[in-house]
């Protein structure tokens, strides 16, 4: 029989989603449910001096107004913890405002209409303090987060970078900037909290059930076994639902106070400040090379935003440590504390924006060397991980580059910018490498036979659109020798065995390996003669030595063709291809979907996405989907992803690697490089909007 694992079967949760039956957090109902609306701060830093809520309290249907003056006691904020997403998330805990849009009051009413209107009538008076809102301004006070916490530098330094760079025949020294970006998942954060017999149930939209469970229980000073957290369907996460947010905590607090269930749904506008975002960055890349393109030095230094309310460091330069060979190397990561909302992980934290800089710098170097950018990368292929100095578990960058070039028709690319045209469009091609770290996390799974032919899988894993339900069913089916339709997968419940959840592309491999173990154990017990009915086994996985002995990454290569309107500077993608290698693929269909999705995120990052800060208010000004642009259908022409056959024996028992983030890594740089090839505009400040391209066109034409 062909392997079930890897087959591109249709999502097993597909029917629920296409019929509208899948119930997301805001779709849940409870008898006698009340509705909460959050009031948010209109200053960026300072103190609340008074809150006038008489009108709100007197509004018909209003049940309560909660502010820092009457909020129940909660656990205090912790600056550091092993699991940042499991920390307490106290709400309305003091009169201090740490960023614009922070919750300052909650209104609960019989209807959502009454709650919203009453919330709008709450007047908060503040005493404002000065804040710092611009990354450039804060650079003097930037610091090394690792050094601050553990005393070790987060820099890597090998050889003599400065000397090698100065001596290099060809040099690139450029600053790249990336803006604030928002997850902008389609489903706004939402929670329904209900108490019964002293036990709290929270239906919420979360990526990490175990962390959320601990965070909610600890915040409310509850025993963990008095709290149940459920996320059966999650309408997109991308990192934005790693933490527990105010909706869950406030719903739980209000439901306890009122003795009835409370639902809170964030508005789209609130999401931009109440939840997290990807920090802006300033990156300097220096590359030195010999005449034949051999890199003699690589230096990649990053500065990104952290927040006064909570520290976060985006690992921007991590991939640079492993991507290309060079004897002299420097990477460093600094963060600066601003009085803006709290940043956190967003799809491929680190690589997603680090490669926007590094892979554009490589293109600039290829131009300076008059060398094909693929040849430049082939020239600098390392034998082993150049900084960890251990072998790669697998490394298929070269086949991705060569196969992609062949399929895309790279040989038709003209080297000279502005020489290919299609009507009013100046046409160009660009490419970039993709690299994304592969991780395995501790995970557990339980499989139970309902009969000899039917099994139930239970894990607190989530499916945020990644296909978890489906790939886990495939793994159980294969190991147990059952058809996929005989496997029922139950996810997203804190009562199920702990998993690392959805984040960092480690979910499928970690959960899959744990489930593989559980099914293998179950099978052994069946073979030993135990009865099938009700037989249950738990399986586990923990990362082993192979993650120290080998450098583990997934790889790929992006190829993009863009058109630049010769008059207006508008950039439109024409076609895009990604070729990837990510270990064994668990489901060819859902993996391809995730990779394509990631690539289109790269399109957004390259051309559209920017949350604009107005430093006078310390606030994001673009806070809806009309002003924070993400790609729409018309922005996305022919985009395809090809997966090369691979099995990584060092990754896990399945040989798989994560694919959820690989697609975005480098994708935007391929587009930036295509823009250069199309018209000669080298835009180092993302996103590449038409106003940044226009000056080059003016120089060209006039």
């Amino acid at each position, binding site marked *: 029989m062909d392997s079930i694992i890897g087959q591109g079967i249709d999502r097993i949760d597909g029917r629920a989603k296409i019929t509208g039956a899948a119930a997301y957090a805001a779709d849940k109902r409870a008898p006698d449910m009340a509705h909460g609306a959050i009031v948010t701060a209109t200053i960026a830093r300072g103190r609340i001096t008074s809150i006038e809520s008489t009108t709100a309290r007197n509004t018909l249907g209003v049940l309560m107004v909660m502010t820092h003056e009457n909020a129940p006691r909660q656990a205090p904020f912790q600056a550091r913890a092993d699991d940042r997403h499991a920390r307490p998330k106290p709400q309305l805990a003091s009169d201090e405002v740490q960023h614009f849009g922070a919750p300052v009051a909650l209104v609960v009413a019989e209807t959502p209409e009454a709650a919203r209107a009453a919330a709008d009538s709450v007047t908060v008076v503040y005493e404002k303090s000065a804040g710092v809102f611009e990354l450039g301004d804060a650079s003097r006070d930037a610091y090394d987060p690792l050094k601050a916490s553990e005393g070790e530098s987060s820099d890597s330094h090998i050889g003599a970078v400065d000397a090698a760079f100065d001596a290099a025949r060809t040099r690139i020294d450029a600053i790249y900037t990336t803006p604030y970006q928002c997850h902008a998942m389609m489903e706004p954060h939402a929670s329904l909290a209900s108490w019964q017999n002293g036990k709290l149930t929270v239906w919420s939209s979360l990526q990490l059930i175990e962390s959320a469970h601990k965070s909610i229980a600890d915040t409310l000073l509850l025993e963990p076994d008095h709290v149940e957290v459920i996320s059966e369907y999650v309408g997109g996460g991308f990192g934005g639902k790693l933490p527990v947010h105010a909706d869950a905590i406030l719903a739980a607090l209000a439901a306890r106070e009122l003795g009835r269930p409370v639902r809170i749904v964030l508005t789209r506008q609130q999401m931009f400040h109440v939840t997290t975002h990807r920090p802006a960055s300033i990156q300097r890349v220096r590359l030195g090379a010999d005449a034949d393109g051999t890199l003699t030095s690589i230096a990649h230094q990053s500065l990104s935003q952290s927040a006064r309310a909570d520290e976060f460091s985006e690992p921007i330069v991590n991939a640079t440590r492993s991507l290309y060979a060079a004897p002299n190397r420097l990477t460093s990561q600094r963060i600066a504390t601003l009085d803006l909302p709290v940043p956190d992980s967003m799809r491929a934290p680190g690589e997603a924006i680090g490669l926007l800089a590094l892979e554009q710098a490589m293109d600039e170097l290829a131009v300076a060397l008059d060398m094909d950018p693929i040849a430049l990368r082939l020239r600098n292929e390392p034998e082993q991980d150049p900084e960890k100095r251990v072998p790669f578990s697998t490394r298929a960058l070269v086949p991705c580059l060569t196969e992609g070039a062949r399929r895309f028709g790279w040989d038709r690319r003209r080297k000279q910018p502005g020489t290919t045209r299609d009507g009013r469009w100046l046409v160009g091609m660009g490419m970039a490498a993709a690299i994304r770290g592969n991780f395995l996390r501790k995970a557990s799974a339980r499989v139970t036979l309902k009969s000899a032919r039917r099994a139930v899988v239970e894990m607190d894993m989530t499916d945020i659109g990644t296909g978890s339900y489906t790939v886990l069913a495939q793994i159980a089916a294969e190991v147990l020798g059952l058809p996929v339709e005989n496997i029922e997968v139950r996810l997203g419940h804190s009562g199920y065995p702990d998993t690392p959840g959805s984040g960092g592309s480690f979910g499928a491999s970690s959960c899959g390996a744990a489930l593989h173990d559980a099914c293998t154990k179950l099978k052994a017990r069946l073979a030993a003669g135990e009865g099938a009915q009700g037989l249950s086994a738990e399986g586990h996985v923990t990362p082993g030595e192979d993650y120290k002995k080998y450098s583990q990454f997934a790889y790929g290569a992006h190829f993009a063709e863009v058109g630049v309107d010769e008059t207006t500077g508008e950039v439109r993608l024409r076609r895009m291809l990604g070729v990837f290698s990510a270990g064994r693929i668990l489901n060819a269909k859902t993996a391809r979907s995730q990779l394509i999705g990631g690539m289109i995120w790269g399109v957004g990052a390259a051309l559209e996405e920017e949350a604009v800060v107005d430093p*006078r208010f310390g606030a994001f000004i673009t806070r809806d989907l009309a002003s924070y642009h993400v790609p729409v259908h018309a922005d996305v022409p022919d985009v395809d992803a090809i997966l090369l056959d691979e099995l990584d024996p060092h990754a896990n028992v399945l040989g798989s690697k994560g694919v959820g983030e690989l697609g975005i890594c480098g994708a935007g740089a391929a587009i930036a490089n295509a823009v250069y090839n199309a018209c000669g505009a080298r835009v180092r400040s993302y996103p590449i909007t038409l106003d940044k391209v226009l000056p080059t066109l003016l120089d060209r034409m006039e």
Partner: protein
Amino acid sequence: MRPFTFERPTSIAAATLAASQLGGKFIAGGTNLLDLMKVDVERPTSLVDISALPLRDFGATAEGGLRIGALVSNTDIASDNRIREAYPVLAEALLNGASAQLRNQATAGGNLMQRTRCPYFYDVFMPCNKRQPGSGCSAIGGYSRLHAILGASRDCIAVHPSDMAVALTALQAEIEVHAPSGVVRTLPICALHRLPDETPDHDTSLAPGELISAIILPPPARGKQAYRKVRDRASFAFAVVSVAAILDCSSRTVRDVRLALGGVAHKPWQPRAAERALVGAPASGASFEAAARAAVAGAEPQPGNQFKIDLARRLIARTLTDLAARGG
């Protein structure tokens, strides 16, 4: 949303009377009014649903033009064969605006009455003279990339978001208005919207309770028409800059030209000087380039939107060049 009463009058007289009361507002498609009510910018105490009024007629006028009832949807205007064939600039403008869903919902009158998308207008806690007269203009000195370069004032640099109104301006359409008194008047489209001056809280010249009942198109203009919209993504985005152009050439000479610009001012902007310079001039790239320069000659940009001057100039020149190349 703040509380409001809701009524469905069946006569124009009843509707205009109801809406002329303090706190009264017409609602038709609702696509912008509800958007603004949800963020607390608009706080009507009484909503007058005009969808039952007899304003859906869409027919020929005695003069050879078209009369479009105010309740005709944006989709239905753009789909009408008379519009597509004789007024393509209008169909193109409509189809380049919003999304299919919004075009199905939004009405002709509502399209004209939509308000600016300036982000500071949308945040009730930030100063905005349009929303709260005298509070100041946050866009000046702020995020002004999409703001006005022409006709702005010290009190407001907002732009009007409608694509349709830009095409109607080039077409020299007229707007029919019913007053609560029963008086019916028509005004040229260019007199509907106003420049901000010192009273940016007034988007239009309409008095309280006045209701747009129809858009009247003159007989089809001679020449070729086009609507070109520059935007930050390929669809479903407001204009960075747009141009509606009607060019009538005869033996390589410009006989008549009409231009209107979107995304540059508080109202659809008519570059009269450019039009005047072109009439009688050769239909050449050089004339078009000179006219385009004249169109933006008085521009006063913000630090964040200087690029719009070059962009508008290049867009005008190219659009005219393309139209001339189509012949006629």
